[in-house]
Each structure stands twice: as structure tokens, then as C-alpha cells.
């Protein structure tokens, strides 16, 4: 199982956390980001993700390095889907394993926050009557 993956294929939520825990781990947290059928009151038909893949992978590795440094969590996997994602399907799955639950939760949550903030991936929502690129935090990232 690759630690970091950007893929056009459906994500196997179940597999991402599987086998991640070692002998000394007592906690596994698996987060799935799922395509919602409704956003800001509008019905969404499907999503489409575009990635700057050559950059997304090293950014994910950087997030993992930071998670290790801040929370001591070494077992982290991040899989992100690109292309068309149907409603109810996962677009991202993050799995973290650690000896205790607090750091596993922190690791998964921090990784997700960072994914939303800096990983060069963009989401487009498709509606009955059009489509829109979703924009995240407007503050430019400067390194």
C-alpha cells in the first residue's frame, strides 16, 4: 500500500487503514472526505478534481514529515482521487496509526487541514445548470 497516492481510480477506503497499525499501535483513525450531494443549498451532481500531481506528492510528503515532527506519528497514509467523483464517493482518505488515540486523531486532523490549505488540488462542482471551481483559503501560500 503506497503511503501517498494521487489516482484517477476509486479509492478503497477500507484498504487505506488496513495493515497500518504496528504491534505497538493502539489507535487507528481513518478519515474519508466524501463528495456531498448538497453544498451551500445547491444540489451537486458530481465533482471533478484536478491535481498538479508532480507537486502534490512532495507536498503530501512534507505534510507527513510535519505530522511526524509535531505529533510523533510515523504511520500516515494519504490517498487523493482526481477526475470525476460521484456523490457519496470518497475524494480523499487519510489514515493515521499511533500508540495512543490522541496523537492518531491529531495526526489525521492536522493532515486534513494541511491538505485543504496547501496541496495543489482543485475541486469543481457540477450543478444542473452549470459548474464552478471551488476556491479554498484566499491567502496565498508563500512557502
Amino acid at each position: 500500500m503506497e503511503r501517498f497516492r494521487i489516482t484517477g481510480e476509486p479509492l478503497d477506503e477500507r484498504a487505506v487503514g488496513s495493515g497500518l497499525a504496528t504491534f505497538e499501535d493502539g489507535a487507528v483513525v481513518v478519515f474519508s472526505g466524501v463528495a456531498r450531494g448538497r453544498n451551500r443549498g445547491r444540489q451537486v451532481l458530481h465533482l471533478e478534481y484536478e491535481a498538479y500531481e508532480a507537486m502534490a506528492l512532495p507536498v503530501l510528503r512534507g505534510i507527513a514529515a510535519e505530522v511526524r515532527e509535531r505529533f510523533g506519528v510515523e504511520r500516515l497514509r494519504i490517498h487523493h482521487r482526481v477526475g470525476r467523483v460521484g456523490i457519496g464517493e470518497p475524494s480523499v482518505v487519510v489514515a493515521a496509526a499511533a500508540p495512543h488515540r490522541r496523537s492518531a486523531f491529531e495526526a489525521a486532523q492536522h493532515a486534513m487541514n494541511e491538505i485543504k490549505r496547501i496541496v495543489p488540488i482543485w475541486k469543481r462542482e457540477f450543478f444542473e445548470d452549470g459548474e464552478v471551481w471551488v476556491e479554498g483559503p484566499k491567502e496565498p501560500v508563500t512557502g
Partner: protein
Amino acid sequence: MTELARSRGTPLVSVLLFAAAREAAGRGRIEIGYRPGLTAAAVWERLIGEHPELEPFAASISVAVNHRFVPRDTLLDPGDELAFLPPVSGG
């Protein structure tokens, strides 16, 4: 400008645009000629000159060189991959 740059054998910088910015400009990849002192900001100004549709992105665009976020005043090197990234929305 791509052909112009190539025809002279000038060292190049690859410029990438993504998502809404790519669509606004109508192109995702542009090769531009390198010259000493060229900064990411200067390339951006030039892009806006050619594609005024990019103007609304000016305040929120992030800059990456060779897959790393950098400040806008970063000096470029020949062969660099320069990317202008609208606010990300992955996850």
C-alpha cells in the same frame, strides 16, 4: 512567445496554470524565455498583460517553483518549472 523563445535557443522557463486560472487563460502550459533577473512576479505581470482574464487571481494566486511554494519575488533559473496556483480546494 513559445516559438520565439525556441527559435533563438534561449534557455526557457516553463509556466504552468491550473484549474480556474488555466481556464481563464485558455492554456495550462507556456514556455517563456529566461533572462537573468527574471522573477516569478515579472512572469505573472507578463501573463496578465497577455491574458487580462487572469487579473482577478492576482491577490490570491500562490507561486511554486520546481514544486515548492515560494515568494513572488523569487528569482528564476533557466529550466525552472514555475506554477501559478489559484486557492487550492482539494480534500
